[in-house]
């Protein structure tokens, strides 16, 4: 009888190396499978990019005529494009969890969960794939904003920072979505909740207007909103002449901590989904 057991690897260092390489391979496996699905059916990727473009083109054009919305030295288009970039990522990521419900209604989730892969590896693999999708879609918004005349900062380091931020934000909201999916377990309820929370998250942030314009209670809410920190850093990195309100390092730190917490939370909830 042949057991797949690492019995020969009794040396602790060898065992650790094996455990790490297994973990990386498990994350990578889930990541690749998710991206292969996108490759087989890329239409969704494009249809999802339409909504943010409409915001930029219609809403942005009209609001350009309203003065005083954006801080001094910026056009409203400059201001808005970072917010819409974050929004496009949010709207994709927040419905990410539905795939877990699909998988659960069949036996696909069961197959994942009987494998020895740690649940965090599965969740991180899925979140990373969501991040890549977010980057692709964010790229479209980025290009269109540039074509419309937004004053983009095109230094490679800034573009890299923007990509990382999109990935981070997308991973954050994707794992939030996954956690919700694990709790509600039904497609109908999930869609309802997804729709219920996207608008408040979007409007209670600095995505389309400065926090300074908000009533006090909304100011408080917006400082608890991860999207605010994502937009804050995005805007500073992406637009010439824009400044971060909270500090870019602080923004990154907050987003990283929340994303890590959500990975742990959704990993725990994930295995209970079949029980």
């Amino acid at each position: 009888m042949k057991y797949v057991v690492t019995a020969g690897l009794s040396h602790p260092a060898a065992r650790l190396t094996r455990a790490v390489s297994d973990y990386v391979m498990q994350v990578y496996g889930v990541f690749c499978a998710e991206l292969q699905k996108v490759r087989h059916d890329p239409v969704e990727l494009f249809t999802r990019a339409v909504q943010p473009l409409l915001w930029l083109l219609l809403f942005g054009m009209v609001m350009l005529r309203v003065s005083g919305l954006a801080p001094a030295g910026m056009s409203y288009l400059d201001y808005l494009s970072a917010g819409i970039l974050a929004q496009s990522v949010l709207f994709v990521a927040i419905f990410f969890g539905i795939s877990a419900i699909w998988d659960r209604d069949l036996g696909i989730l069961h197959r994942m969960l009987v494998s020895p892969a740690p649940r965090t590896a599965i969740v991180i693999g899925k979140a990373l794939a969501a991040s890549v999708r977010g980057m692709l879609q964010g790229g479209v918004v980025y290009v269109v904003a540039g074509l419309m005349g937004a004053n983009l900062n095109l230094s490679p380091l800034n573009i890299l920072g923007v990509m990382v931020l999109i990935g981070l934000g997308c991973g954050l909201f994707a794992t939030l979505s996954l956690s919700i999916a694990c709790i509600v377990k039904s497609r109908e309820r999930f869609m309802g909740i997804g729709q219920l929370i996207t608008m408040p998250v979007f409007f209670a942030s600095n995505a389309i207007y400065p926090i300074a314009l908000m009533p006090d209670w909304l100011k408080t809410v917006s400082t608890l909103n991860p999207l605010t920190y994502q937009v804050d850093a995005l805007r500073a990195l992406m637009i010439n002449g824009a400044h971060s309100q909270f500090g870019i390092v602080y923004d990154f730190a907050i987003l990283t901590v929340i994303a890590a917490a959500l990975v742990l939370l959704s990993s725990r909830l994930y295995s209970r989904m079949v029980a």
Partner: protein
Amino acid sequence: MGKNGKEPALDVEELEKIFGTFTAVDKVSFTVDKGEVFALIGPNGAGKSTIIKMLTTLVPPTSGTAKVAGYDVVKQSTEVRKNIGYIPQLVSSDGALTARENLLLSARLYGVPRLEQEERIREALDFMGLGQFSDRLVSSYSGGMIRRLEIAQSMLHRPSVIFMDEPTVGLDPVARKAVWDHVRELRGKYRMTIILTTHYMDEVEELCDRMALIHYGQIVAVDTPAKLKEGIGKGATLDDVFSKYMSNFEENSEGGNYSEVRRNRRSIASRS
């Protein structure tokens, strides 16, 4: 793990599962030897899938213990997972991926060494007769092909025990026979122990060394099909055995509730 070769593949003691106030599995005990094909039989809702979910570490037992391949399902769940394969009652291959991609995902999740992955995948595809379809999306597969792919995915890491929950439900006679052949080969060629559930008595007759009759979460009989038939009388069939042990409880056997029926009948095609 079974160093002396005598330790059973499965050792279940007083295993119990209570959902809220409902006892789905009521303190069952049984053992399965290495290399056996063992069937769990019982009407809809008897608790077969719940037993399998506990043995595959998906659902934590309320009480009792179970050892699979020598490992405790609660305390050593990772070791158990490394040593088992599982084919759930519902479709478990991803319809949005090709067969090869499904297999690659399984290989990576199970930590099959990178250099061996391709070889193992090819072997599994050939073994299951899927080689020529390996780059087609699984959503275009027939029910029989999907089952074969699921078996391929479950054997990649060379488990010592495979659990199959209703492996032939919804298949045409040819596809069913093909699955039976594969089960025999898994046992013969790879020396695996196989635990399956089924509602088909001919399947039990064809494949299984021993069977457990489950009713209302309890095991009401465990033995070889031959012995159980003998116990009923001369010329008895397995249907007679089933009827005798279940007869007191006819009202339960109405094919499950609506949501169970819906879930059991859903095919992968509905995903697209």
